[in-house]
């Protein structure tokens, strides 16, 4: 194909850094993965894999390299591979993260990189956990807009300020990194957990919603917001950068401020 006119296009000076970079270096890493398959054994064990990886590779690429070239039985969930679908939350070097958002070069590759399933949910196989208890808590907080009165013919109005009020908690991708990083959740699986509270927050502070009181009632339960010990693991774990602990505090304050 050719450009339709020969006119020179308008141009700018590009920064000198553009076009540099050169070849992406390779490096060796050891991946240490916790394995569990109840079809084979009731006990879990660690497997180590030595891999050569590239500069832009993520932990997910390393897991794929194992699965695709070395051991096809290694099992983990993944889909989008760029941090929006929430499938591949796992414990990497003891911290909850998304495997597809964790670049190997940002980890200490001089030591083995440990990969384990997220904690507090039953392990099904290798890095796959049963997500059902997590989604059960989510469903219990009424995670949908509830309105009363007549719906307008066009959209409901909402000021940019009111929209901004709950913006942070709309980012949640339900990956469970926060909930499964919470020591309270580890010891008390009945606790709603940070993700459910984040999703309640998203509606409680939405100016269009009329069911805030019902959600606050639910979260005022003994397994609700008061279980939170403000440990901040959840905020550190959130791959979307949601200020989870802040959201939980705001829900706590709303419970206290509520008219009974």
């Amino acid at each position: 194909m050719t450009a339709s006119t020969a006119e020179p296009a308008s141009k700018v000076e590009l920064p000198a850094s553009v076009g540099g970079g050169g070849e992406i270096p390779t490096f060796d890493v050891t991946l240490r993965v916790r394995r569990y398959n109840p079809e084979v054994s009731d006990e879990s064990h660690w497997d180590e894999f030595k891999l050569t990886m590239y500069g832009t590779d993520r932990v997910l690429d390393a897991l794929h390299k194992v699965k695709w070239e070395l051991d096809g039985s290694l099992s983990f969930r993944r889909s989008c591979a760029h941090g929006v679908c929430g499938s591949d939350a796992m414990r990497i070097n003891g911290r909850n993260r998304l495997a597809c958002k964790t670049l190997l070069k940002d980890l200490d590759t001089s030591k083995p990189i440990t990969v384990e399933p997220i904690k507090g949910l039953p392990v099904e196989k290798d890095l796959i956990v049963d997500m059902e208890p997590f989604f059960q808590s989510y469903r219990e907080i009424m995670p949908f807009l509830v309105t009363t009165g007549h719906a307008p013919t066009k959209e409901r109005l909402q000021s940019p300020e009111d929209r901004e009020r709950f913006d942070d908690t709309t980012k949640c991708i339900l990956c469970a990194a926060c909930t499964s990083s919470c020591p309270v959740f580890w010891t008390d699986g009945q606790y709603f957990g940070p993700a459910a509270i984040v999703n309640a927050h998203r509606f409680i502070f939405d100016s269009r919603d009329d069911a805030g009181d019902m959600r606050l009632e639910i979260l005022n339960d003994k397994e609700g917001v008061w279980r939170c010990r403000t440990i901040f693991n959840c905020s550190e774990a959130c791959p979307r950068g949601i200020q989870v602990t802040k959201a939980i505090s705001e829900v706590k304050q709303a419970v206290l401020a509520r008219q009974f």
Partner: protein
Amino acid sequence: MQVHKYDVVIVGAGGAGMRAAIESGQRARTAVLTKLYPTRSHTGAAQGGMCAALANVEEDNWEWHTFDTVKGGDYLVDQDAAEVMAKEAIDAVLDLEKMGLPFNRTPEGRIDQRRFGGHTRDHGKAPVRRACYAADRTGHMILQTLYQNCVKHNVEFYNEYYVLDLLVVEEDAVREDGTPYKQKRVAGVVSYDLASGEIHIFQAKAIIFATGGAGKVFKTTSNAHTLTGDGMGIAFRRGIPLEDMEFFQFHPTGLAGLGILLSEAARGEGAILRNSEGERFMERYAPTIKDLAPRDIVARSMANEVREGRGAGPNKDYVLLDLTHLEPAHIDAKLPDITEFARTYLGVEPYTEPVPVYPTAHYAMGGIPTNIKGEVLQDNDTVIPGLYAAGEVACVSVHGSNRLGTNSLLDINVFGKRSGINAAEYAKTADFVELPEDPSAETIAMLDVVRTGTGTERVAAIRSDLQETMDANMQVFRTAESITTALGDITKLRERYRNISIQDKGKRFNLDLLEAVELGFLLDLAEAMTVAALHRKESRGGHYREDFPDRDDANWMKHTMLYKDPTAETEGIKGIRFGTKRVVFTRYEPMERKY
């Protein structure tokens, strides 16, 4: 083997599937089968917006939107379908708002709108602000909102149930003109429960396919690992045609080397594409709307810049998306996610440095043919009663040979809703079709072949070779030679596929087995795309033949229909029959496509 009975079964829980489920679930007993958890679907990766002529910020109307869609699709769009979509877009957006979707707002509190490629005022005069959006995570918000409403309406999900077969029976029937034919009818689907490895049959009066796309036939793609064209593949194997498979969209701005999507909204907000010399090269290719030309044009222009030696980077193999002239606060407010992708994956700071980008395989315009009710066609004129398809798996055809940005989020909402309503209404009056004898026999046999195979080939190696050849030969520039090369490679890869073995022999979460099955679909679809591309000897929309560089309306203003047929041969490939289907015109005559 367990058998379940539902009025309506929906396969897939992305935007189209869940939008259908919200309608169907309130009218009929409905189950949604999904190989992923519902919120994991790739609808969530869509970024920029969903167009509807709300006219909240400037003059607009649905007729202009229809025109843009038709012109954007290089006139291969069925205009009746485009009209339905543009008209119902307005309610589709308002429905989502009422369901709770947190759209960005204007100072007056209305849904805000922004510019997007190919969307113009008054038939191409200037870009128009038509895309309703929620920052650059509109798809995420749609997916979450639809799931939230499925929870609200107690929609029944079967999570991680992978549908492997559609149960089709054929009955003798007679057309109005007296000619006999075989009428296909659907009895149910066969699914594989990933957690247990058990087979579950779902008998249903109506079935909706909403399984998404097939981007994983390519190496550089914005698509999820799980987008392996299962629905298209299953339908094709069961004798249902595939329409317009040669048309695949390459999104201009994938992160270079990775394919991760950077929304067109970046250019909608003012970002500019530049080559290694700093030139705004789109001024040469689309003088009027420049960087906001439709995706096929921008993608080809970028590839051409690289081909002519004006690519940036150490290997001169990408161009640059320049946001450095935009205010950081504006970038943070409107494009937070994509700028974070650039930082996370390439270590580039978009405030101060241009971002390396290159076209990435993005969207299948083709798919299972349907009419505007969402009903699947078994040939040009015959509906398969009770079978519906919506979203990327389907071809209505509202996208023609090139989809406009934002029209996919619109498509899933408009035609997902239509399919859901129509399937439920159909189920109210229809009876179950009797299941064929031993309905899972073929599926079990296929799985056994894969599970017990002792060959020497690895699934991942074959898949990677397939993706390499598709990137090299079936990307934005195609010739008879390149396409034939791809076809030859696919034939060899099919041979190798017969000689695979997998390592995981267990029943529990056997994703090794799953990937092997998925590869089978990818091979089928790559072949269908390639055969169709070789056959269409013209250039139109996303299909650009350097050996036939012009659009040829006299010979090619028609849809491609491919059928699996053991007795046929097309372009040297045995087992594929070629047909065509008329393009529906209502008000727009084809014109030269200039921007």
